[in-house]
């Protein structure tokens, strides 16, 4: 057993162990950013600037009573959240963090993500149905119908990406962007921008985010498909939801924004500025921000990390994961921005947008890209 053969297993284990905690912090980041949009402070009580809030939340969720409605279908009620979590986690396997850091490089990577997302729909349908509550069932049906409506547009926009890359492997898609000296976002003389916007809209709908969060529209159907879930089972649904958000951001970053590649990856003399100076500058800026918030341990940590990034060897090793996670964070920020800016759609508007606008647009974008790409 060499290190190379063990690495995928190690990454799988680290991901599965660490992601629940990461999810907690994603929620905190989201709450903080939303609060900022609304000129509030957000969580401030637990720990400095609410930094221990996720830990407190996790403890609370484990200690909460777990009620199962008396008419519920127990077996399905227990199974459904598990199904959601497993399918969401599985998608991470094909996301490449750098040229070597990945769990698996499959020939059908992109399709595997779609396939697992398709199975994830059952977590919603079965969870809502087994609860035997009107709100749950309505939320489940809405959720499932929404997911499948936008999956078509999502798939069609990904076809245009595959046309450019000539492979379904996530690794291969990033390498194709390196070889063609362009992020696919700007491919086909800018026509891929259209595909990207279709992808973004469909992706937001796929992960049930505002303005497409109808399956859990609290003003109409309480909490949708997980109305009857409490305690840790509810937490599993949240875990699956945020994992899906992370996955969709990672897919966007990988197929449209060059994945782990730094900007202008083909220009040699930009290597040091992009691999070392930019990350270091960003870390120093964050350190300064932490100092202003009087979080001095973090200032020290971020400052030292920034200095470490200036060592050329470290920069070459760490720049790929740095750029990957920076791009993922940027897309995640955009999703929060959407949530802060737009009111929720009505259900018929949602279906109209999916079937009458997005699908024709996606078909048009596909044919246009097919013709332009040949020229």
């Amino acid at each position: 057993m060499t290190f190379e053969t063990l690495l995928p297993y190690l990454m799988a284990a680290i991901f599965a162990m660490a992601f629940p905690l990461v999810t907690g912090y994603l929620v905190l980041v989201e709450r903080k950013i939303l609060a900022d949009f609304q000129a509030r402070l957000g969580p401030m009580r637990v720990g400095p600037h609410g930094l221990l809030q996720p830990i407190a939340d996790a403890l609370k969720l484990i200690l909460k009573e777990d009620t199962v409605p008396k008419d519920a279908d127990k077996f399905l009620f227990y199974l459904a959240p598990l199904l959601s979590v497993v399918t969401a986690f599985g998608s991470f396997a094909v996301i490449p963090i750098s040229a070597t850091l990945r769990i698996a490089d499959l020939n059908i990577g992109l399709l595997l993500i779609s396939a697992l997302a398709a199975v994830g729909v059952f977590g919603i349908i079965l969870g809502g149905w087994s609860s035997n509550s009107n709100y749950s069932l309505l939320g489940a049906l809405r959720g499932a119908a929404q997911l499948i409506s936008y999956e078509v547009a999502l798939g069609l926009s990904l076809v245009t990406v595959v046309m450019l890359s000539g492979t379904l492997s996530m690794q291969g898609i990033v390498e194709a962007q390196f070889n063609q000296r362009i992020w696919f976002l700007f491919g086909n003389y800018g026509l891929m921008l259209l595909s990207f916007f279709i992808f973004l809209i469909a992706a937001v709908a796929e992960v049930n985010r505002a303005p497409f969060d109808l399956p859990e529209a609290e003003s109409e159907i309480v909490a949708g498909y997980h109305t009857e879930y409490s305690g840790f089972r509810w937490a599993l649904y949240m875990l699956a939801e945020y994992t899906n958000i992370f996955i969709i951001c990672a897919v966007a970053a990988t197929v449209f924004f060059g994945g782990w590649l730094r900007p202008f990856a083909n220009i040699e003399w930009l290597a040091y500025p992009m691999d070392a100076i930019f990350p270091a500058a960003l870390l120093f800026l964050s350190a300064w921000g932490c100092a202003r918030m009087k979080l001095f341990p973090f200032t020290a940590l971020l400052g030292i990390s920034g200095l470490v990034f200036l060592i050329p060897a470290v920069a070459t090793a760490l720049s790929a994961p740095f750029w990957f996670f920076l791009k993922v964070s940027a897309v995640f920020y955009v999703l929060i921005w959407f949530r802060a800016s737009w009111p929720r759609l009505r259900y018929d508007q949602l279906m109209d947008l999916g079937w009458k606008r997005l699908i024709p647009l996606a078909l048009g974008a596909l044919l246009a890209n097919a013709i332009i790409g040949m020229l």
Partner: protein
Amino acid sequence: MPEGYLPILFLLAIAIAFPVIALIVARLLRPSIPNPAKLEAYECGIEAEGSSRGRFTVRFYIVAILFVIFDVETIFLFPWAVRYKQLGWFGVAEVTLFLSILIAGYIWARKKGALDWV
């Protein structure tokens, strides 16, 4: 089995194990004091009205069947997209014909009002 799938199976196994273990731990820690009112299905405090395994609008059925059709179509496009460069204009022509037949069906369904939600 092709290379690369074993780590995925391993990941899926951990993904199953983690929630199951956490649920067992939680079961040992959390209180469990059920009472009849607590176990009622939630309906804003009033008693639940009717069975919630009732019937639903046929709209959902249309959406599902149209989805299956368009899903099949998208799946056909993926192999083409992989060989897009090699198949050249011949492939583009093939797919254009394939899609135009489907688009005709889509326009017909839309005219018939099958895509209207209300």
